[in-house]
């Protein structure tokens, strides 16, 4: 009952967040304006703001936020570590190195399509590197080695970024730093479709593996005795969750906190059953990031606050309240 109510609540929260995101901003639209624009007989300026700027941005928030929270939940189960998050295995470092490289070489501006491509390529490079290191030590994929390899590869890319920034022009450094803080400002329908293409099928694959992920969290040997092909589950979960993260980072930069706090907070409320946790994480992450983006746009209008600041400012107090509540008898 509590579970069904929470699912419904979160679904409504996503819709509400999207609705408010398309209505509010530097130019606020009334509910009537929104529906008229959607029907195609509204004010042309309003229609353009709605369809070309706000709606793709809100949907990008839904996909990236949902994807990060979902993959965060998978990484926590896979690495058997409640502190794991989507960036822990070096994906953020790899993508940032790719993005900073093209920015510092002056190849692209922040709005170019090359930037997400470079970030995605960097993320893929990090994923492949980490996987190769972790899987070469033994025939089986040891999650402790995976974690170490991820942290080390991440540190390497951090050094690459530092090197690139130190030899870049001031303007390129500023663009790079802003990119690394994450933002949904570059939203477009192309990016929405791109991320949807990665996130939605991958999300379904992961949700289909929920029961196996549950078993992994009680130990690999036991999971094997209970009928799981442990190696296949680990490899698939790592690969698919990484792809979701890579796609999100490519279009929105490194947005911290969503992938760590959303699954963790939900775990405190509904427990650790991945069959429930994965879909709820997606919904909660989607609502959370879309709302955070709305706040980031409005709070210092007309300029924008980095979205990572808002996710932390909103997420930390919320999380602490939940943590306290879960500790009290």
């Amino acid at each position, binding site marked *: 009952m509590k579970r069904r109510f929470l699912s419904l609540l979160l679904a409504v929260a996503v819709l509400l967040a999207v609705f408010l995101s398309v209505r509010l901003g530097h130019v606020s639209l009334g509910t009537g304006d929104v529906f008229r624009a959607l029907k195609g007989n509204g004010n042309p300026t309003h229609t353009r703001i709605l369809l070309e700027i706000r709606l793709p941005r809100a949907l990008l928030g839904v996909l990236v936020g949902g994807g990060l929270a979902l993959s965060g939940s998978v990484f926590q189960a896979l690495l058997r570590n409640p502190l794991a998050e989507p960036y822990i295995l070096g994906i953020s470092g790899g993508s940032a190195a790719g993005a900073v490289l093209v920015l510092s070489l002056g190849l692209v501006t922040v709005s170019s399509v090359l930037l997400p491509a470079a970030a995605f390529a960097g993320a893929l490079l990090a994923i492949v590197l980490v996987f190769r290191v972790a899987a070469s030590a*033994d025939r089986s994929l040891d999650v402790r080695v995976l974690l170490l390899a991820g942290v080390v590869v991440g540190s390497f890319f951090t050094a690459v970024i530092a090197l690139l920034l130190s030899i870049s022009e001031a303007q390129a450094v500023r663009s790079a730093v802003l990119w690394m803080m994450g933002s949904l400002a570059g939203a477009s329908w192309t990016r929405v479709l791109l991320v949807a293409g990665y996130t939605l099928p991958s999300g379904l694959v992961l949700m289909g593996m929920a029961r196996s992920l*549950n078993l992994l969290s*009680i130990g690999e040997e*036991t999971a094997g*005795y*209970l*009928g799981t*092909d442990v190696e296949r589950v680990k490899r698939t979960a790592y690969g698919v969750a990484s792809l979701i993260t890579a796609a999100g980072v490519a279009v929105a930069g490194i947005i911290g906190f969503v992938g760590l706090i959303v699954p963790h907070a939900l775990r405190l409320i509904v*427990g*650790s059953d991945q069959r429930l946790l994965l879909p709820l994480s997606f919904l909660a992450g989607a609502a959370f990031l879309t709302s955070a983006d709305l706040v980031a746009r409005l709070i210092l209008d007309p300029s924008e606050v980095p979205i990572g600041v808002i996710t932390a400012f909103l997420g930390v107090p919320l999380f602490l309240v939940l943590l306290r509540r879960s500790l009290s008898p």
Partner: protein
Amino acid sequence: MNFQTSELVVRYGRARAKALAGVSMEVPEGALYAVLGPNGSGKSTLMRALLGLIPLEAGTVRVGGRETRDWTRRELARVVGAVPQAEHLAFPISVRDFVGMGRYPHLGPLRREGEGDREAVRAALARCDVTDLVARDVTTLSGGELQRVRIARALAQEPSALVLDEPTASLDVRHEMSIFQLLRASADGGMTVLLITHHINLAARFADRLLLLNEGRVEAEGAVRDVFREEILESVYRWPLAVRTDVVSGTPQITPLSSVSEP
């Protein structure tokens, strides 16, 4: 469901020593079969090899007459329930959900638990006397409760054989006795039970047959009286001991003696 190995050799990674160096044994159907041996003698490795979790260097393993590698993990889990030595839970989980995981091999990715699954879980909980604990978090259980809950999970698989690695380690008398009696009753009900244990006196009292491993080899195998011989046990455990028939249970029991030469 019987287990059979023939000239089984297992080596971990690039280690020079063999963890199992040519083990041939057979666990008859419906027997309570205890595997004994000092630490590091290959008992847990034998369990992993029997259940196909580690690659074999040589030899064969058969479960129910069929080689382990011909079983899928899921098929095997439907007929053999296993309780490994240690499990480290990453997250809190209720006893009900934990025991419910025993139904995993019977469910597909999209099939939800039905009445039959819930009934299997209820029966397993009752069998292990842990029904009262269903709402508890597994990470808060005492050692004795946890072991019974883990056995309940294996029974929820509705297997025809059970394999357990030291299920009575660090338990008090009451709990170790209740587990041995539970396993004895399961074997009497037709289930094949392979039990790895350091409680050699309880093994002598409850088991039908014993296997004594030492440094990856079979040192002795057979009925309790054939294995419980002073010279065999002394050389394997490298400690002086006496074997006497216990007046209460009527089975041979060992008493470790004081060592004269070593501390």
